[in-house]
């Protein structure tokens, strides 16, 4: 166990950021803390790092493996030392060690060069942070955190300030790097795609609580709550009644790719709807429709299916539900 957080509550002057949160992270695991802003994910990360103190409580405890300053932290806005070169930024953690633990200048040079090589910025060693692009700064921040050979690596929205392409590239790069050096990693993000792609395990947070923790597969296919369904990607909401459960009000969630479109209404469950927009630039074709109650429905079709149906805007067609998730208040099926 690399990180073991138990029953943590954190209150600020006028709100509670974390409510009795427990989290365990195994050695070498990459865990993503996913949630909207204000869900407490960054606060939890800062508590693990020791930058913030949790409310004192007998059951509360935070345990992080390793002795001394062995937490590598990467800030959302990099927090590079602006008056130091790339080389000096990376060397900082080694240079500030007490004399007895400090490597020789030659050793520091060797290790920093190695890290600069790893982040592919050897040529930029003499540059200042202001002379680098966002993606390069982020890599320097990562190298600086890795220089102290941390037992855990904590990343706070590491790709949040970068544009989409660089973000994808860095995400993949981080994944390979993490597999290579096997350092326990916790990553905070509000981007569900990022979390599902990068992490071994995803922890979904909402309003200071953990809603669900599991592999990307588990949380995506077996969401534990309405919040998790709605947060993990687009979803259509239908209101209905569940016959078997005392005729309670039920809410039905269906993802766009779990819907299909037909030209004929083969049974009563097909929903008649009018096409408002077809967006076919992308891996799937997104069709937006409105049903007779003026409710919006989004459907994802494969390009093949779309070609076969030959849909046109303002046509009336029938939406078929292939799979669905039902949530009844205080009752789950």
């Amino acid at each position, binding site marked *: 166990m690399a990180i073991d957080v138990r029953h943590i509550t954190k209150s600020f002057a006028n709100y509670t950021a974390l409510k009795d949160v427990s989290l365990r992270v195994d050695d070498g695991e990459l865990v993503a803390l996913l949630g909207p802003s204000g869900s407490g994910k960054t606060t939890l990360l800062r508590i693990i790092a020791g930058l913030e103190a949790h409310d004192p409580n007998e059951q509360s405890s935070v345990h992080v493996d390793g002795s001394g300053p062995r937490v590598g932290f990467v800030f959302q806005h990099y927090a590079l*030392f602006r008056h130091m070169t790339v080389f000096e930024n990376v060397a900082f953690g080694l240079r500030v060690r007490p004399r007895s633990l400090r490597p020789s200048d030659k050793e520091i040079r060797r290790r920093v060069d190695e890290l600069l090589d790893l982040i592919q910025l050897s040529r930029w060693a003499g540059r200042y942070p202001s002379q680098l692009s966002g993606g390069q700064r982020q890599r320097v921040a990562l190298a*600086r955190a890795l*220089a102290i050979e941390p037992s855990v690596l904590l990343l706070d929205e590491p790709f949040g300030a970068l544009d989409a392409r660089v973000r994808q590239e860095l995400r993949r790069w981080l994944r390979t790097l993490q597999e290579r050096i096997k350092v326990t990693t916790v990553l905070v993000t509000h981007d569900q795609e990022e979390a599902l792609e990068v992490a071994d395990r995803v922890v979904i947070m909402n309003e200071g609580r953990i809603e669900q923790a599991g592999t990307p597969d588990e949380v995506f296919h077996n969401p534990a709550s309405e919040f998790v369904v709605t947060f993990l990607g687009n979803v259509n909401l239908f209101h209905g009644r569940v016959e078997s459960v005392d005729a309670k009000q039920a809410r039905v969630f269906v993802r766009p790719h779990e819907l299909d479109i037909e030209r004929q209404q083969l049974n009563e469950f097909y929903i008649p709807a009018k096409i408002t927009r077809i967006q076919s630039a992308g891996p799937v074709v997104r069709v937006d429709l409105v049903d007779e109650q003026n409710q919006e429905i989004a459907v994802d079709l494969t390009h093949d299916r779309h070609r076969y149906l030959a849909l046109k805007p303002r046509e009336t067609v029938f939406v078929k539900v292939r799979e669905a998730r039902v949530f009844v208040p205080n009752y789950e099926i």
Partner: protein
Amino acid sequence: MRRTLISVSAAFVGTLILLPVIAVFTEAFRKGIGLYLASITDPLALAALRLTLLTAAVTLAFNLVFGLAASWLIAKFSFPGRNLLLSLIDLPFAVSPVISGLVFVLLFGAQGWFGNRGVQIVFATPGVILATIFVTFPFIARELIPLMQEQGTEEEEAAVLLGANGWQIFRRVTLPNIRWALLYGVVLANARAMGEFGAVSVVSGHIRGRTNTLPLHVEILYNEYNFAAAFAVASLLALLAVVTLIAKAIIERKIVKHGD
């Protein structure tokens, strides 16, 4: 439009700043270089110069420490009374220097609250220094607080997590980030310290050779109708001001270049 603006500002700068400076130097040399040298090497003038430099040095040393500490505290921490401290730092800018001088006389004078405690403060060097510190202490803090607030605390947090101790963080992260702004504040405070008249005038007592700073010495000479000598000594102050201005210009260029 641009031409109008340029000529208006040129006219203002010319009449309000350039002309007086020229006048100071012309008047100083009117009776010849001999009298000029005699005036500025006069023992009383030299004593005033010494006191001015001593006052400026002590004031700067104090303000450097206080300014840094206060800015650090205000910019990087939040605590009860923070806004009160911020307003108190501005107080010397709001109060007339003569009034602040009077307050020191009230506190430390012979009949004052803390008077007659063995050490003479008012009408002696400590009073001059105290009054100067009081009127100059906002300069450095005012220069640093906005900058430090803008820079935030993330770099310091990063340094902590990389294992740096408090002193290392200050020396290697905080100080280099504010060095030019700090120097700029020092230059401004220095200019004010050397030129301060009002507050010092009240607490000094004008004892020639003992508690006279350069500005006070100029006033005395002027009141004695010793114009040539007054302007000669004033030209010394003007020279100090020019040196300060050049230092300021150099630092400003550095600030633009380094963005801090």
